[in-house]
């Protein structure tokens, strides 16, 4: 039975259901217990699972991320919440050196079944240090998986997959989406990691998005539809592994492709997708792949500047018009 719940509730359901099913799963992070979660994602979980499994930490990302990783070496399956992925930078050595490389460096002896999750990307006027989009930076590292859900249904299904996965999974959420509501089935289901979904069918141009950018793509597609351009929106959902087959299928149909990525453009997921599409769809493309990114600047505080920085609908519309001019 599906009912409409918020994104944050979907995340909570995923964690709670998995914790009921598996005593090895625990949640650790800043303000996850007594405070009910800085963004209320873990609200009520302390009450149900108690302080041994819902664990408040000091402001000490390197310490508690490393603690979580160490505990996987003895079979536990932690969920580590970063209040913001921006704060994960101080734990970079633990999450990039230890988690994704442990299996390899130990010759298969110690895997690292851990989930790191939290808010990623610009919130609302938080300034540069709190507005990190870590996806392009972290997706560069082999050994980890990365999911970026755009809606409550996928958030619950993907997070459950992540908790059951035997590899480290980075789950990037957006503060701007936590209150978004959507239909979510009650009880158990999973969304497999590595499978994109067609968010909206179209015929003239493929828009590749993930997470919050799917909403920017929607706005742009609405506007372009009024101009007679039919966009197909692909919601990638997972970044590692990336469902290239889904992109290729769509591009072979539309012959045009625009990638929308909320991180910076240089050496990014956007550039990766463009390179792969150029290689796989060389004979199918009627123009080169266009990319829409955050502007190549630190995130500003001022509201209007921040909105302009984002890969917003206006920029996507301009890119689609530009790429399809010869259609």
């Amino acid at each position, binding site marked *: 039975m599906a009912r409409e719940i918020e994104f944050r509730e979907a995340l909570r359901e995923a964690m709670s259901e998995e914790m009921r099913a598996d005593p090895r799963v625990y949640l650790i992070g800043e303000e996850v217990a007594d405070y009910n979660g800085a963004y209320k994602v873990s609200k009520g979980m302390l009450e149900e699972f108690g302080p041994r499994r819902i664990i408040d930490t000091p402001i000490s990302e390197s*310490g*508690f991320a490393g603690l979580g990783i*160490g505990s996987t070496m003895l079979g536990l399956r932690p969920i580590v919440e970063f209040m913001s992925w921006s704060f994960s930078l101080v734990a970079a050595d633990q999450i990039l050196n230890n988690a994704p490389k442990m299996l390899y460096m130990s010759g*298969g002896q*110690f895997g690292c079944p851990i989930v790191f999750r939290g808010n990623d990307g610009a919130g609302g006027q938080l300034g540069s240090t709190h507005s990190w989009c870590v996806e392009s930076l972290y997706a560069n590292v082999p050994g980890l998986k990365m999911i970026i859900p755009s809606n409550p249904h996928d958030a619950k299904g993907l997070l459950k997959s992540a908790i059951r996965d035997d*590899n480290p999974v980075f789950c990037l959420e957006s503060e701007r989406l936590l209150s978004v509501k959507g239909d979510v089935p009650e009880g158990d289901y999973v969304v497999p990691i590595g499978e994109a979904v067609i968010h909206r069918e179209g015929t003239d141009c493929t828009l590749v998005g993930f997470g919050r950018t799917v909403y920017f793509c929607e706005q742009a597609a609405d506007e372009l539809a009024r101009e007679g351009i039919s966009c197909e929106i692909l919601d990638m959902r997972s970044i590692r592994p990336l469902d290239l087959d889904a992109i290729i299928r769509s591009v072979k149909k539309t012959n045009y492709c625009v990638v929308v990525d909320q991180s910076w453009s240089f050496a990014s997921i956007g550039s990766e997708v463009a390179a792969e599409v150029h290689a796989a769809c060389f004979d199918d493309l009627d123009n080169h792949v266009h990319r829409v990114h955050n502007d190549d600047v630190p995130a500003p505080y001022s509201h209007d500047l921040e909105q302009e920085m984002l890969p917003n609908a206006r920029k996507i519309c301009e890119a689609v018009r530009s790429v399809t001019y010869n259609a």
Partner: protein
Amino acid sequence: MSTTETANHVVENTVPVPDPEVLKSWLRDMLQIREFEVRSMQAYQNKLAGGFLHVYNGQEAVAVGCIAAMRHTDPVITAYRDHGHALARGLDPKIGFAELFGRIDGCAKGKGGSMHFFDRNNSMFGGHGIVGAQCPLGTGLAFATKYTEEVIKGGTSESVTACFLGDGALNQGSVHEAMNLAVIFNLPIVFCVENNRYAMGTAVGRCTASGNQITNRAVAFGMEARSIGGMDVIEVYREMKEIVDQVRATSKPYFVDIDTYRFKGHSMSDPRKYRTHEEEQEFEADDPIEKLTRYLLAQKAMTEEELKSLSKQVRLEIREAVNWARQSPVPDISELHHDVYADTWGDYTGTSLPGYMNPATDEDAATGEASNGS
């Protein structure tokens, strides 16, 4: 009975000196580590081993004494100068050499190298290359034993983790974060600082505030701490036994400053210009292996003949281990994409345990041979 000055008070150590047979096994363990390192340096010079090589000569009493005070299931984790701990834990030296030589029979199938000796069967959790980064992991091991024993099994915490670090790691933030977490979560962990007086080439006094009394760091966190000598394996064991037993009973962390000395350089490329030859000679005269040997001879627990025979036996074992490891094949190129992910997708081919940890496969192979022969 020895008396130790701790950060807080003077304690009388009541742990008895073990039987001569136990002491002889420790002598054997220390000789094995020393010989392993001598051969490692040789292999490095012969280009059989590559990368970085950090040898443990001079510090043998620390790993052997500390690990003797623990149960075999108690987790051990350390930094990159890790051969001694792995061997003291029970890693077969031939598996260690195979790892150094980058061969498939190594403990990490040749993917970890000198700095990443892992051995799950012997509760050895690495071998970690970034200074101090093993300390948060160590708190995770202690967290996991306590969580498993108390939350999952509903019993009481009974394991103790030994997390080794060097004096150089004391200035890493992650170490301080780990110590804070260990205290606030009441984790059963002993932070064993192998204070060999140099952070690479920088003397502890030049880089560490209150470096003359590093237990001050622990006191600041409200953690019990003491300083002990690290060149006498009996002393290390007796002090650590008391500490480990206390941590097992109280489930509160402990910090121990172990005074030791690195006879060789930081790594193989270290000309050691930051310390004098006289200083080195002074500490070499305090060799932990010679110290235990003298003790055993004086106690008439061992004869000169027995000592010679033991040394010879160890030298032979290590020579055979080197030869065995040299025969081990280099990993197949397909190993490049193996062990990146636990599962299979795209270029990644899933994972498997090193051969020596998989007795089922060995048995199958043995059975296969037998049936082929019949």
